[in-house]
């Protein structure tokens, strides 16, 4: 029972803190424009070569065109394939992507476990069974492989080692430990029946049986879920803002435009404190 509550708790913290962080970023004051081209929401070829509406003669007199599809496509490429890393640093991408892909697979696996738990009473469809099997095993292997490879790479590469803090090794090790304990449970139950059992327990709020290794695994996983949003591993939140709200945010402030009201509001803000350099308070004299 305690373990059940613990899982609820860690899931809640994970979601709650992640959302809270997102909200915190979303509520930050409007910043100066700081876009960086290429901006994928520009239309047509421009999205590719990095052009913008500023290329149009009298751009401000033309209707603004934005390609949300282009933006979405670029976002998905980044999310699903870590495109920037692929393009700019292939060797590291192999390792990082192995781990991230593993985590994505485990995400899918978790959903499939849920679906499995719901369908099991009326007979588990075999494709759910096999999809769970594949996503779980591939996910676990890739995550384990990726995280340990990243640790080794960081440790053996003289440059990376200089910049990696003990905490950053710990983070990777933490992920590795969670996956390894998971794999230890899995060895004793290759069909992931225990996973569906836990899901059922979660859905129906009924305690489930758990052996020693499973207990350790759940405790570690729960701790990881609680820990992630407090660390920079929560970059799933940050990345949205760096791209959407900073690098790709190029909305012009035109007379009468929608953004004008927000600009007006931002301009009306009166700071309560000030910088201390002499020229700041002397109005440039």
């Amino acid at each position, binding site marked *: 029972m305690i373990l059940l509550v613990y899982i609820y708790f860690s899931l809640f913290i994970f979601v709650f803190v992640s959302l809270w962080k997102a909200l915190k*970023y979303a509520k*930050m*004051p409007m*910043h*100066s*424009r*700081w*876009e*960086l*081209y290429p*901006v994928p929401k*520009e239309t047509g070829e*421009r999205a590719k*070569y*990095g052009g*913008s*509406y*500023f*290329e*149009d*003669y*009298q*751009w*401000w*007199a033309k209707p603004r065109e934005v390609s949300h599809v282009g933006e979405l496509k670029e976002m998905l490429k980044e999310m699903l394939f*870590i*495109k*920037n*890393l692929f393009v*700019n*640093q292939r060797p*590291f991408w192999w390792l*990082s992507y192995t781990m991230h892909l593993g985590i994505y697979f485990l995400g899918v696996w978790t959903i499939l476990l849920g679906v499995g738990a719901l369908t099991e009473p009326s007979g588990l469809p075999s494709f759910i069974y096999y999809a769970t099997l594949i996503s779980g095993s591939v996910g676990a292997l890739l995550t384990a492989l990726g995280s340990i490879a990243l640790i080794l790479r960081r440790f053996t590469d003289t440059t990376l080692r*200089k*910049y990696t*803090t*003990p*905490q950053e090794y710990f983070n990777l090790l933490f992920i590795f430990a969670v996956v390894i304990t998971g794999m230890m449970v899995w060895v004793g139950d290759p069909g992931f029946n225990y996973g569906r059992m836990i899901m059922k327990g979660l859905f129906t709020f009924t305690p489930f049986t758990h052996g020693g290794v499973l207990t350790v695994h759940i405790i570690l996983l729960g701790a990881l879920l609680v820990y992630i949003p407090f660390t920079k591993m929560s*970059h799933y939140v*940050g990345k949205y803002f*760096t791209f959407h709200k*900073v*690098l790709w945010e*190029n909305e012009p*402030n035109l*007379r009468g435009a929608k953004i*004008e009201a927000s*600009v007006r509001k*931002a*301009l009306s803000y009166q*700071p*309560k*404190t*000030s*910088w*201390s350099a002499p*020229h700041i308070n002397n*109005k*440039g*004299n």
Partner: protein
Amino acid sequence: MKNLKPQDMGKRTEQLVQLGKLMDLPAPYDQPGMEPPLTVPKDAWKEKHCTTLDGYVGIDTLIRPQTKAEEEQVVNSFLSGLAKIFSDDVNRNFLQPLVLSIKYCAKCNTCSEACHIFKASGGQEIYRPIFRSEVLRKIVKKHLTKSGKMLGSLVGADIDINWETIARLGELAYRCNLCRRCAQACPLGLDNGLLAREIRKIFSQEMGIAPKPLHEKGTMLQLKTGSSTGLTKPAFLDMLEFMEDDIFAKTGKKIKIPVDKKGADILLTHNAGEFMTWPDNPAAFAVLFTEAGLDWTLSSDMIGYDNVNYGLWYDDVQARRVAQEQFKVAKQLGVRRIIIGECGHAHKASAVSMDRITVGEDKIPVESFLPLLWEMVNRKVLKLDPQKNNFPVTLHDPCNVVRMMGVVKPQRQILQAICPQFREMTPHGVNNYCCGGGSGFAIMQSMNFPEFRKQVGSRMKFRQILQAFQGSMDPGTPKYICAPCSNCKGAIRDILEFYHTTEKFNIHYGGLVELVVNALVDIEKPFLEFLA
């Protein structure tokens, strides 16, 4: 120091690095003796300034303290500024991008390969984009976070915060051109250029320390006299008269340059450095705008004749003050739009960075001159003969125009139309390399800083230029680097002089409008002087 780490910034050693083997240059600069050796700083500079980073002095106003108390005062002032950049009260305009870039670095080191300074230096550790960021991050961790205070080195809060750390970090913020090429490469969208700029802001806005050419003789002078060149209104008006005579002598065209014309369609603004150093550039604009029959004007109002905004590089408060004055001029003249001439950072300042400081009636649309110029060429408003420009031409992309603003195509279309031997640099467009003059470097002339700029900062650009002209290096063939930006021109002028490239290989530089005027059918003599 061997195997240098960010933590070493706090060590009281004499000089962290001495630059040695730099990135190789292509032929003919791959031969020994084509480049003077790097120098060491003078003792007097060591005593007075901070040379303990790499031996160069970028911040001429950063003075070594004489007493312990003075040292502490500097450190405390830095730390107080550090807290302020994270404040949603005084740093509202950059809080979100700053926090994101501080928090999420995955230390994947992808950004290093993108940085021309790091590459040109032969891979010096201190110029790695994340080196600087990591020092800042460590100070933030140690000074501003609970985890840093409790867990210390476990979470990366392992750095000594003393005068040397702070001074070196300040200097290091001036070893970055703020070109943001590294940010393009970052898988998390983080921005080491922004972090360098925030450090510069702490120095200027809180500690009152900024390079003289940017601050005292830059924004301060501009706010006082109207121009960072010190150019006053009467001198400006004189200059225009002289320019009209010069245009007549060169092109046979009698032109009256419109000044302070109320209600004109276009207010054209230039970097005042053009009037002083490259008057052919504003003259070429005058020829083309008159030829095309545009309804345009220059302004002789305070600040109206200088579109620069050095604040962009180091101080938000100054940037805003300058921009406000500039927009006011346009409003008072009652023009329909502002067109920015060949100045990259003025493009970014007026059209992008300062886009959100005015609203309603005060908001005058800002355009780059490039789409307008392409419109003129494309619609055949101008009678042009490309054969007049039949020599190798390459294009330098000012970062502020391409990467920060997305104006990429019009300049290429123009060059393709008027220069039969146009060739691109590699890489180009939004992936260009900075000229090495970005973020104030082009005008920072104190002590040995120009050596850093010329041999490290501009090295990648020099390499690209040489590569673009491979096969045409014969001194009998004139070659032209088109650099539509005053600062880029300044940096390129300095490298061509430094490496004697013009004299040895007949490589010249200049703007874009000069090329267009040179191609005008109805002028007899070449407008570009090196062709005369």
